[in-house]
């Protein structure tokens, strides 16, 4: 195991209507970067890139993202389902709460979380640039030791 992970969030259910995500939409978190791997349902402006994410949803995922990037299994975080995948949802209520109790909502999305081991995270390609500036590479103090070991 490399100790490096990419977090993949895949939409498995949309309750009601979500203008951003549909079932199958994927959000990929690679260290500090968040990517969208499919097009938005609603285009922002004609002729512009269509790769927006929902900001409130990203905020809702925020408590987990750093642990997930470091390979902490969703089960340890208390967000795993019976299949051991992690599951998170956005802050809006599922539509049943509107139908049963008239609590306002337009829709809610549920995402499945999967950790993919990788040899290189996105930031790693900048390690040499950082060393040239006499800065430590991404990844913390353990990798500073790696650098000095290789220099010896």
């Amino acid at each position, binding site marked *: 195991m490399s100790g490096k992970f990419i977090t993949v969030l895949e939409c498995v259910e949309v309750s009601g209507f979500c203008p951003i995500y549909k079932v199958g939409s994927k959000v990929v978190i690679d260290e500090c970067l968040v990517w969208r791997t499919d097009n938005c349902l609603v285009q922002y402006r004609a002729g512009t890139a269509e790769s927006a994410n929902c900001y*409130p949803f990203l905020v809702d995922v925020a*408590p987990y993202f750093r642990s997930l990037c470091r390979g902490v299994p969703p089960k340890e975080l208390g967000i795993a389902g019976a299949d051991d995948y992690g599951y998170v949802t956005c802050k809006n209520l599922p539509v049943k709460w509107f139908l049963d109790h008239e609590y306002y909502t337009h829709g809610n999305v549920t995402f499945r979380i999967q950790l993919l081991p990788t040899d290189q995270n996105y930031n790693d390609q900048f390690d040499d640039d950082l060393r040239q500036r006499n800065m430590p590479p991404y990844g913390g103090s353990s990798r500073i030791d790696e650098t000095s070991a290789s220099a010896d």
Partner: protein
Amino acid sequence: MNMAYKAKYKVIATVDNVHGICPVYKGGEKIVMQDGVLNLQETDVVCLQLLSTLIHEYMVKQHQDYWKMEGGFDYSKEKTKCPRAGPPYGEGYVIVSTETVPQEL
């Protein structure tokens, strides 16, 4: 302690419903946010996973007079939930309502 000294509202979040299993809340607990901090005397217990949702809820509702004045949607009765998933995916989640109380500056 005046990082939010212009906050005109105290925001009281109440856990309304527990759907499925929540290891922290049973329902009815309060989380009180005031002047940019948690009011620990009036707060029962704070789940840090729920806090991610409550932070932006608080930041906007402490200034709710602005968006109400401008004629936008009235979000004051909107409820929110924690990011945990309910059955059949995850164990459960809580639904939270927020009440704003004007306070003197």
